[in-house]
């Protein structure tokens, strides 16, 4: 028994030393995921996608011959744990780029990564992260090292407001339509609220007081009753899929028929349809990439990566995870061509991209442009609607909204 223990310890030490020796040539990348917390159902496909893509990149030549060393940490959506992990990484692992996850921790870390010069690619598309120099009057804090693949939450909501305006006219609605923002008192749902309510007011909507519902799934019948009584025509759900499922089920039970539900990028996917069924009929939401039924050439790579890792039945967030990883790959390749791969060089590489799409993902990822003063990657938002069709659910493409690149829309 003791002998076996000694052998195991010796083996572990040997493996550890070999890993340390190999680490010298690799590119350190940190990844924060939430596999065990409230957003686990959307973090799992996204996190897996990033891991799988990096594995694929490593197997196919890496970045200029160097492999990416990925360290994944599950922080259960608790911001202090993310910060503690970040601090331990900065003193030991020293990543050049971090694939982050949630809004709370990304916004909290934006100051830290700016000081430590580490590029932070988040799965949070909060508008607060889009102003690198702080020139917009709405910016609370400049975020020079924050990038993300996807339209901002605020832009997504603005696009939905534009669609809703057209929809109201088409339906023959009289007077001003009423808009209500629903979400938890939490950074992620709160991120687009101010921008969205302001834009709704600009477009002639009547903005009702926001309705709070928790990000953890629960019984939201009282919120649905308030929604029904408020007479809102368009309700924007700011939370993620888990709590939206509960909300849709509760509102279906209460009988909220007059309200058109809209949600954000992380608020709707195939799982919501599976769990809430008919209650999801007619939901409108922005999609940040192509969908599974797309025939774009880039989908081949997605399927190849999934097959290599044995993934089946993934939700649409998987595609955005692959896009995020490949934009990182492209930025690192551009940085390697000019010199070394460090935080500042990766940032500079990102800021040269104009309408950039990774070559293998043509037609799948939306073109993104970043500049030194503007980190709103994309202003083209594809708005989709879900149709229940008695179980034969389809996602219908409604319209592509192109929002203006206004300087005062940065940072919120």
């Amino acid at each position, binding site marked *: 028994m003791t002998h076996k223990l000694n052998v195991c310890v010796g083996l572990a030490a040997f493996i550890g030393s070999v890993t340390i020796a190999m680490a010298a040539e690799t590119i350190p990348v940190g990844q924060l995921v939430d596999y065990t917390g409230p957003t686990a159902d959307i973090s799992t496909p996204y996190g897996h996608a990033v891991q799988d893509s990096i594995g694929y990149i490593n197997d196919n030549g890496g970045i200029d011959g160097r492999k990416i060393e990925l360290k994944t940490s599950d922080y259960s959506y608790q911001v202090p744990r993310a910060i503690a992990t970040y601090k*331990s990484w900065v003193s030991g692992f020293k990543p050049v780029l971090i694939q982050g996850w949630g809004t709370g921790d990304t916004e*909290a870390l934006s100051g830290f990564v700016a000081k430590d010069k580490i590029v932070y690619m988040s799965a949070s598309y909060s508008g607060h992260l889009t102003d690198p120099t702080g020139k917009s009057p709405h910016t609370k804090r400049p975020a020079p090292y924050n990038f993300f693949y996807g339209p901002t939450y605020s832009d997504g909501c603005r696009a939905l407001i534009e669609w809703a305006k057209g929809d109201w006219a088409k339906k023959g609605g009289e007077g001003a339509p009423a808009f209500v923002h629903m979400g938890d008192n939490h950074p992620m749902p*709160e991120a687009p609220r101010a921008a969205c309510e302001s834009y709704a007011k600009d477009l002639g909507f009547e903005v009702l007081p926001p309705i709070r519902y928790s990000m953890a799934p629960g019984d939201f019948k009282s919120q649905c009753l308030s929604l029904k009584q408020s007479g809102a025509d368009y309700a924007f759900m700011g939370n993620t899929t888990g709590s939206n499922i509960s909300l849709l089920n509760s509102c279906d039970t209460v009988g909220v028929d007059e309200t058109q539900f809209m949600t954000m990028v992380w608020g709707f996917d195939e799982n919501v349809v599976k769990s809430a069924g008919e209650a999801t009929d007619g939901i409108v939401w922005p999609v940040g990439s192509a969908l599974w039924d797309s025939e774009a050439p880039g989908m081949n790579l997605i399927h190849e990566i999934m097959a290599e890792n044995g993934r089946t039945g993934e939700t649409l967030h998987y595609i955005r995870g692959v896009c995020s990883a490949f934009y990182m790959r492209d930025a690192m390749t551009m940085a390697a061509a000019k010199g070394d791969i460090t935080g500042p060089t990766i940032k500079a590489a990102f800021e040269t991209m104009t309408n950039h799409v990774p070559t293998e993902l043509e037609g799948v990822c939306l073109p993104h442009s970043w500049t030194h003063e503007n980190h709103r990657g994309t202003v083209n938002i594809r708005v989709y609607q879900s149709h229940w069709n008695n179980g034969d659910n389809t996602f219908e493409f409604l319209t592509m909204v192109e929002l203006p690149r206004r300087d005062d829309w940065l940072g919120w």
Partner: protein
Amino acid sequence: MALSADSMRCGEFRTSYKADTTIFPTPRSRNFALAGLLALLVAPFIFDSYVVSLLIQIGYYAIAALGLNILVGSTGQISIGHGAFFGVGAFGSAWLSNSFGIPVILAIPLAGVMASAVGLVAGIPALRIKGLYLAIATLAAQFILEDIFSRAVWFTGGPAGSMASEPSIFGYIFNSDQSYFYIVLFFLVVMFLAGANMLRSRDGRAFVAVRDHYLSAEIMGINLAKYRVLSFGVAAFYAGIGGALFAHYLGYVSAESFTLMLSIQLLGMIIIGGLGSVMGTLLGVTFMVLLPEVMDMAVGAVGDVIPGLAEGSSYLKQMAIGLAIVLFLIFEPDGLAHRWKQIKAYWKLYPFSY
């Protein structure tokens, strides 16, 4: 009288009350404590950042846990709102240093005072109720404060939280783990000495009297109301200092750090360490802080043999904390302090075990 580890050696005798109520029971234990302190003073130069960060965590949790131990172990009350007082100290220190420009090193004790004020108010139910009912009242304080943290944008920054800057003394900024360790060590030593001193003073004896037999204590003339609420105030002061140190270490404070889970963890720390014992607090906190790290290493080592284990490592960590509390309650209800005393007694009194 039974022999024990604390029995005096032959030839030792005390001739005054002052000599009888020293903070350290024997000169040897005092010397060991001093040696430990000297070892801690050089620890940042010997160990790497990771170990130092663990020591810092032990430091600020130990201060908060000592407060809870005074409340629960020495005064016999119950509080499951201690995490919220920790939060008041954290947010308070960040708010004082951000809004009023008060130097961080002064904001920390002031945050303790703020937390103490909140604790005095939260302790008012203790005047009338005891036991389970008091536990529920403190639970209410926990929830109320948690809600205030997530809504009071002027104080806490709302759901987005607030940034807490690093302490600086005469221009020297304590922004590394190694340098911040000394700030935490300073507060730890001061608060622990103050706590141990308080427990041997008149107020400390009053606390113990309230715990052991409150009716007799009242008959003897101890003002129950005053000491019950004072105990809450003192506990909250300690929690506030611990929270402020936590805030300035992390650099960022958000409401989700101060949930009921933290209150239960602090309770777990003092249960494992030993109720009513100052040294036990330190032992219990060390155990609870190192447990997730040891579990991480164990899972990492075993995870190579059993692949599925690595994915569930954060679940295992949570389970381990709960399991530790339960096992300690079953097998060692008096905590690590008692177990340490038994170990000392075994060696001291060998071959006699009594």
